[in-house]
């Protein structure tokens, strides 16, 4: 059962061959025996999962089943789950049990899905290797001592290792797509505002977006059907109709116009990676697509703009962790200032502290115009590049990461080395457009991802393009040994 997709498990449950309680117990048993190798979960919520499974079986018996009813999955530990510990990978929230559900959490509950637990992640979603988690690094199922990518590294590793068929992720600069690529699974970052951020612990509010992490594009479409939609509780959510993302998966790709941004096939990309990506593009040509080169002249400024905007927003968002109302508090504070400064020094890890400090610096008196305002202007230039390119093509294709999964510890000495890992993903967040990472080959036995970038609200088209590719390739079905 653990090799089946969400769509397949849904059919098994529908046929009555297995109950959700039986299926959930099987997945829980496997999760508990296997995850010692990966450390992909922070919390396994066995009791709640079995209760949800029982409720799902009752829902089905009452004739109210959806595609998700009784299907096990996991949440990245950034989505608040009422009554189940939500840590965001931080000591600051080590014992935080939210008294409410994120909207995404509530949507899966309403659909009858069964959450097995909370997956590991870089602390506060800040990282590209899952090494900044307070709960320890995650191991990529494709290689001993290899990182799974980050920040949604636990979700990616758990799906790749067949511990769950699907998991939620969040993507602020590449945190769904890069781990999906490094673990050989499918991951979609939707348009900014498509999925509610309510109850999703905030990192950089103008960039954060939740999305699906699955083995197949079809399953990602099933997840989007539950995740997407307007939410009055998220002030930046977009009120716009949600299509059935599974309805257009089988549309033919004949005539699809693909653009290859020349800046994303640069010297940062290893020749072996480039070969895999270009082979994938050739598969699309066989499916009837046409290919041309496009240019994103300001893409080279994306990392610089991001490392002003994201830390600035993070420094504001993370000011809520003050030791007063919830989360960690230092021992024996001697006065209020001592409580704030020691709580935050002891509760946050190094990368989070660095980003808060950079952000506070960029927003401080005398620097605001030179850093924050300048970065927001460059952000518009980057967005304009994408808008111009989409006048010529339907989608763009590129690598997801410059290299396959690297070795743990390889990029932790200098933060900037780690930041460059997101060179092909970060501009997409700044523009706010959607992009999907699809398994597209291997280099040295490690998975390579193809990034398909779309215009605003083109998630259905991206899922269609990914699904059609998965009908003629089997990269997404390869299983780590």
């Amino acid at each position, binding site marked *: 059962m653990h090799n089946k997709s969400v769509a397949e498990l849904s059919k098994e449950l529908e046929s009555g061959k297995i109950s959700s309680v039986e299926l959930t117990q099987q997945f829980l048993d496997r999760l508990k025996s296997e995850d010692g190798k990966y450390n992909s979960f922070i919390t396994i919520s066995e009791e709640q999962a079995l209760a949800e499974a029982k409720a799902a079986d009752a829902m089905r018996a009452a004739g109210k089943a959806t595609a998700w009813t009784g299907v096990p999955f996991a949440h990245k530990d950034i989505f608040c789950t009422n009554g189940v510990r939500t840590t965001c990978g931080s000591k600051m929230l080590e014992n935080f*049990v939210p*008294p409410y559900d994120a909207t995404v959490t509530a949507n899966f509950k309403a659909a009858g899905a069964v959450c097995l637990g909370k997956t590991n992640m870089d602390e506060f979603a800040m990282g590209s290797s899952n090494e900044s988690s307070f709960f320890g690094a995650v191991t990529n199922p494709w290689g001993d001592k290899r990182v799974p990518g980050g920040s949604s590294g636990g979700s990616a590793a758990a799906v790749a290792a067949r511990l769950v068929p699907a998991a939620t992720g969040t993507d602020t600069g590449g945190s769904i797509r890069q781990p999906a690529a490094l673990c050989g699974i499918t991951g979609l970052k939707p348009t*900014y*505002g498509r999925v509610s951020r309510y109850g999703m612990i905030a990192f950089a509010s*103008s960039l954060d977006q939740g999305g699906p992490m699955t083995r197949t594009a079809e399953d990602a479409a099933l997840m989007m059907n539950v995740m997407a939609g307007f939410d*009055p509780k998220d*002030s*930046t959510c*977009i009120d716009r109709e949600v299509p059935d993302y599974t309805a257009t998966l089988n549309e033919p790709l004949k005539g699809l116009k693909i653009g290859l941004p020349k800046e994303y096939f640069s010297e940062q990309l290893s020749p072996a990676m480039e070969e895999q990506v270009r082979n994938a593009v050739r598969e699309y040509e066989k499916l009837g697509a046409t290919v041309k080169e496009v240019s994103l002249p*300001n893409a080279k*400024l994306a990392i*610089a703009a991001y*490392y*002003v905007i994201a830390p600035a927003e993070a*420094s504001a968002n993370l*000011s809520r962790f003050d030791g*007063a*109302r*919830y*989360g*960690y*508090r230092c021992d024996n*504070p*001697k*006065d*209020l*200032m*001592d*409580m*704030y*400064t*020691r709580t*935050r*020094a002891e509760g*946050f890890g190094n990368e989070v*502290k*660095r980003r*808060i*400090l*950079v952000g*506070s*610096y960029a927003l*401080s008196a005398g620097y605001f115009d*030179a*850093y924050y*305002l*300048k*970065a*927001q*202007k*460059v952000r*518009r*230039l980057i*967005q304009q590049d994408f808008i111009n390119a989409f006048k010529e093509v339907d989608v763009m294709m590129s690598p997801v990461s410059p290299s396959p999964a690297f070795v743990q510890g390889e990029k932790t000495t200098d933060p*900037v080395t780690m*930041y460059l890992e997101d060179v092909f993903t970060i501009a997409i967040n*700044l*523009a*706010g457009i959607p992009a999907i990472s699809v398994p597209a080959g291997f280099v040295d036995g490690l998975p390579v991802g193809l990034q398909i970038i779309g215009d*605003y609200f083109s998630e259905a088209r991206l899922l269609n393009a990914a699904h059609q590719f998965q009908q003629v390739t089997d990269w997404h079905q390869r299983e780590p040994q």
Partner: protein
Amino acid sequence: MSISREDIEKVAVLARIKVDDEQVSALEKDLGNILDLVDQLSAADTEAVEPMAHPLDAVQRLRADEVTETNQREAFQAIAPATEDGLYLVPKVIE
């Protein structure tokens, strides 16, 4: 661009994060590297470009001024580090 020890100490106070001398040295190097990276922005011509705050240029939505939530003080205070008589306890603020 480099950042001085004094700048780091000042910004650490603004961010309410205690840093010791040893950490300041490490931060001097790390933050200096990050600011070098960020300095690429100064080369961009942004004359007459509007700053971008929301990708779809959406503006803040307003809602009716109605009570929509119930009081959940007990649930919220159950997860607080220290409370008493329905109040959050913090170190003495006024001497």
